[in-house]
């Protein structure tokens, strides 16, 4: 029997097709062409754009950097976010103010966050090096933004500072919805606080952590603003992310075909990782309650 509501859904499908499916299909189509925006010349090159990108050492280094950046920042954000949620999920006199304050970084524009942290990490005028100098580390000894390894630490720190509150908000909401009875029953049965957390609270939080983790993974994989404003991808390409590589192809070189190929590679990478996260998050939680 024909669904009566299908006709009403058609405009939504049409809109989605127009703003999502068609652009994606067009970008896919473009990825098989050499198309320079300024000259307007367009010629079919089959898989050449993909081959050129995959052979480019800068692209491979961007993939490595993006994976390192994403895995490190999402892990730290989850640890910090869950920790903050557990700490702040208890009654207290000033808890409302504290809960509001910890999400402040998340409310800040990433450009502002990036520029502020760039100043904080400055070798000669940064407050971080100033504080270290009080501990005996000479000013300028640590060149945060000029040393490849330290520059990655700097961008990850900025990313974690800004986005751990997002994980906190999701996990805190999850904690609020948990029933108190299982924890109370476990306490009566003599379980230690750690056992209660490990075997009762944490398993029930897995779906919330999974949601937060998958969101952060997807967003960190395509993160542009923070690495761009803090280091610009340097030094020596040590913080060059896929998004910066894509930006160069698209808006600095105007090589739309190559940019389209990079965009599709990024999409596939994101889809695979996001699917893995969603699959993990949708597994039923293992807990004492379900055993």
């Amino acid at each position: 029997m024909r669904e009566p509501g299908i006709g009403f859904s058609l405009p939504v499908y049409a809109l989605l097709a127009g703003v999502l499916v068609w652009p994606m299909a067009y970008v896919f189509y473009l990825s098989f062409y050499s198309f320079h925006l300024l000259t307007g010349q367009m010629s079919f090159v089959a898989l050449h754009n993909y081959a050129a990108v995959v052979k480019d050492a800068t692209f491979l280094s961007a993939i490595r950097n993006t994976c390192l950046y994403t895995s490190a920042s999402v892990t730290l954000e989850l640890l910090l976010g869950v920790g903050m949620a557990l700490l702040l999920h208890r009654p207290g006199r000033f808890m409302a103010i504290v809960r509001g304050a910890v999400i402040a970084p998340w409310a800040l524009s990433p450009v502002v966050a990036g520029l502020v942290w760039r100043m904080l990490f400055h070798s000669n005028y940064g407050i971080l090096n100033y504080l270290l100098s009080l501990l005996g580390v000479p000013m300028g000894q640590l060149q945060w933004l000029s040393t490849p390894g330290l520059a990655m630490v700097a961008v990850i720190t900025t990313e974690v500072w800004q986005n751990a509150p997002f994980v906190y908000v999701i996990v805190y909401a999850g904690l609020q919805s948990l029933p108190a009875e299982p924890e109370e029953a476990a306490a009566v049965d003599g379980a230690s606080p750690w056992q209660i957390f490990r075997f009762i609270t944490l398993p029930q939080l897995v779906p919330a952590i999974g949601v937060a983790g998958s969101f952060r993974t997807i967003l960190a994989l395509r993160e542009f603003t923070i690495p761009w404003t803090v280091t610009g991808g340097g030094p020596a390409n040590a913080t060059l992310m896929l998004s910066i590589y894509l930006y160069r192809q698209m808006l600095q070189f105007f090589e739309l075909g190559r940019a389209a190929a990079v965009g599709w590679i990024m999409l596939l990478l994101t889809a695979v990782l996001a699917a893995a996260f969603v699959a993990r998050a949708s597994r039923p939680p293992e807990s004492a309650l379900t055993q």
Partner: protein
Amino acid sequence: MRGPRRCGDPRDRRITRRQVLRAAKDAGLASLISSWAVKQASAAPPGRLTWLTHPVFGDVTHDLLLRYKNETGTEVVLDKVPYPGLREKAYLELSSGSDRYDLISITQDLWTWDINARIEPLDGLMQSLPPEAPSDLNARLLSMFRGPDGKLYGWPLRSGVFILHYRRDLYEEMKLTVPRTWEEYKANARALNKPPERYGNFIMGTQDQFAFHDWQNYFFNFGGKLLSPDHRRCLINSEQGVRATEYWLSFVKENLVPPGAASAKWDDEIAAMQQGLAAQTIGWSPYAIPINDPKKSKFSGKFGWAVAPVDPKSGMRHSETFLTCWGVFIPRASRNKEAAYKFLAWITNRQNDLLMALAGNGPVRNSTYAQSMYVRMNPAAAATLEALKYGNPGLPPLPKRPEITVLINQELNAGVAGKKTAKQVVDDIAAGVTRLLSS
């Protein structure tokens, strides 16, 4: 199963297919009309010019724009966009054939010839409406905006060339002389170096255009040439290129520059000179004004300026440093091309070039550099004019210039970060650039 209909049943209020089609038709018509209206509204009407430009021009032209409106009735509206968004927006506007802007500013080193078909050549307008004292306009700057067809595509508006900025008080105190050779410059840097309070030099080694800007001053003055005359081969890994790069990187290795050279940009350079962290540098000439600004600099009045040193072995008679200039382009799609050109000719006449220079601009007329008011305001004027004569604009505006620039910056930055030797840097640049030129 559907039940019998009753009064007020929602199914009675169903929207018919005809209604949906009519609504879709109306929406389509409305969007067509509104897009046409937006297009009409976005094009500048007669009596108003729209100018896509960098925020710096808001500061240096502010009073002049008010005067221009009073004198001619033409309002010039600025759309100020900082880098790197400015170049992107400018190129997207030009390539789309948009008539939104009548004037578009970008620096010469970011202009590429492949956009020329979208730009109005200015030669015809110049002939029919000659600017005031055309021979006074700096010929070197004008030549930078000529295309391969010899036509003039951009109008110079803000010039700058790299010169030596040094702490005159320290030079006097230590009895140092203004260096004429790189050897003397290094000797001065060693004498002035007193880390961590003060360093003998400053280099911009960050992974964007600034590393390339900075390095070129050393490279040209070692006698280096970027490309072969036919633009097919990269000559950066010549003997001069290796020596220049080794010399440039040696300041980092010997700790003669403040920590953080691999992320240092133009604003760091200005701050280092203002705060006394660096005692000398080869920097852009317009920076002399903020470096010497009594409100911002701890050492205002204690600076000196001169042309950059050269390598005596190169056989060069004159110092040749990187020369760059902001140009204004008139899009071919503009509806107010003549009015836009008239405005450019007016804003760069002798009086207005001086007024802009007094507001912090880099003049484009030779006569401005000799004006006593300007020399009082900018004591680096004489050194700047001398450096302008032999300034080198670097890479020609080849279509591959953006990619070449990114590659060179990347490699130079790797050298500053200690990841590559000078030889590896220039060899990798030469191989990469030659590959790009042949692609």
